[in-house]
């Protein structure tokens, strides 16, 4: 059944899109900024993964851990060195911070271009072989991607719902002043969240390396997906981003299979246009309404 196969493929890539979306929307919810350098964090993780896995021969699990830690550090450092000074300069810091991240994006992209050259690098796959379930064929690679994504989403959910840090993040995203009054260290939350956001996008950077390859401008792909998923799910809405990621993944795969493979990237843009016409606030509010109808029919 080709259709089922496509759905499964869509779920796999959708899981990664969800991760990408969650990292992006998280920072918007907490700091109310767009991080234009988000795609470049992905790109750095991809390069790091390529070097670590291909050149150094490190095992995948180690590469993942290293990249998560490295990007967490880079994200946190970015917040402290670039964003914090701009934030503290005036009350109206949202736009200047976006500009700074844009500047960072340009610098990172061109720096890597100059240092590493523009050639596409990559590996074919982390795992070879596939699982034959009769109706569908799923490669081990895809299973791995799905597993890692779901694990990461679960870990993030756990972090947000069950830890003090997650509670603090939630508080800041809902009511900044209230959070400060409750004794939450805003600076620390900002720095750690930014690091978390970068760490999150490092995982797709590593896992999708065989699929998207490694080159200086590869960051454009995740950032566009992040935009689309975030708009779909509602800015700052994490559950929306998770669902949005899957929706985008499945739609892209179906469009690619049944309409044309060139349409794949167009789907993200098409979604963005449709959303801004019909659901400017994303599907988030509708999710909430749905949930309420279920709880109180």
């Amino acid at each position: 059944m080709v259709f089922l196969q496509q759905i499964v493929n869509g779920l796999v890539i959708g899981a990664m899109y969800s991760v990408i979306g969650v990292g992006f929307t998280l920072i918007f919810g907490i700091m109310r900024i767009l991080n234009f350098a988000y795609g470049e964090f992905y790109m750095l993780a991809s390069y790091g993964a390529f070097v670590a896995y291909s050149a150094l021969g490190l095992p995948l699990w180690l590469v993942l851990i290293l990249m998560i830690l490295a990007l967490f550090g880079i994200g946190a450092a970015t917040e402290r060195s670039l964003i914090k000074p701009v934030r503290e300069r005036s009350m109206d810091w949202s736009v200047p911070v976006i500009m700074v991240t844009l500047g960072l994006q340009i610098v990172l992209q061109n720096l890597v271009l100059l240092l590493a050259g523009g050639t596409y690098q990559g590996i074919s796959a982390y795992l070879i072989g596939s699982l034959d379930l009769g109706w569908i064929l799923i490669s081990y690679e895809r299973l791995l991607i799905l597993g890692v994504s779901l694990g990461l989403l679960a870990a993030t959910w756990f972090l947000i719902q069950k830890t003090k840090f997650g509670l603090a993040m939630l508080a800041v995203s809902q009511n900044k002043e209230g959070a400060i009054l409750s004794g939450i260290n805003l600076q620390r939350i900002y720095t750690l969240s930014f690091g978390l956001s970068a760490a999150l996008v490092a995982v797709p950077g590593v896992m999708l390396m065989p699929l998207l390859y490694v080159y200086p401008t590869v960051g454009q792909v995740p950032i566009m997906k992040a935009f689309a998923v975030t708009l779909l799910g509602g800015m700052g809405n994490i559950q929306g981003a998770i669902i949005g990621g899957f929706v985008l993944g499945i739609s892209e795969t179906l469009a690619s299979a049944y309409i044309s493979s060139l349409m794949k990237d167009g789907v993200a843009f098409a979604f963005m246009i449709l959303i801004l016409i019909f659901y400017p606030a994303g599907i988030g509010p509708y999710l909430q309404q749905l949930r309420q109808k279920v709880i109180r029919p």
Partner: protein
Amino acid sequence: MTRRDFTLLVGFACLILVIPLVVRNEYFLHLFILAAMFANLAGYWNLLDGYLGLINFGYAAYVGIGAYTSALLAMHFSLPIPLCMVIGGLLAGIVGVLLIIPCLRMVTFSTAIVTLAFGEIARIGATAWTGLTKGEMGLWGIPPLFPSQNKLLYYYGCLGLLVLGALMLKCLLHSRLGLAVLSTREDETAANTSGIETNRIKLLISGISCFAAGVVGAFYAHYILTITPGLFSIGYTIQIMTMSMFGGKGTLSGPILGAFALIFLGEGFRFMQDYRMLVYGFLIIGTVMVFPTGLAGAIARVKQAMGIKRK
């Protein structure tokens, strides 16, 4: 305007007016023309962002729309070129307004994403619609604005547009409309309850800004005589934005200074061509973090310091 301001203005004007007459180097003139065009674009971008506070990350798309529309009209229908330019501008303006309509209900950041996405879609569209635009190959053989090859004509033409535009902006900002624009940026809700229809202001200013971008794009098309979909790319939007910021957001002279400065600094460091985007990135970060008032602000501070020293 103080006497010192006036002297400086005259000095700068002389520089940009007279040097091209004196230096007859073709390439140099070309740079001047580019600088004048970017000065226009940066100025109108600044109207939207610096004065109103509306960021349009797909700005280059309007330049492209104006360029292609004007070029195609001139090539296929042989209309007089100034008319084509105006129509190109109008189309760009209308598209700009239409795009902002759904953005009115949205948060600023959704607007940023949407305008960015539109820029990309426009670029992809221009590339893919090969029947109309000849895609990546580009459109060539565009009829020139001035029959003669004399670059000086183009330069003074563009400069004329710049002066006209600057004067218009100045009038606008000192009028009732200018007050409405500033109020909208200061505090939209308070502006609304004081009788300003902020949505209409946003649409109007977007229309003006995008119309101007389209006209400049059309001018470019009839100057360079070959255009490609690369015109729509976000790189140009970033250049325009950087020039406006570097020169001094929220001032009239800032974007003009920024445009001329960056074009000529870019040339002065010609060996840095490869590094150009990298430098722009650093400039953006540097401008935001270290001198947010840009060149114009720096000049103002220098003038102040000099004034104090004199006393």
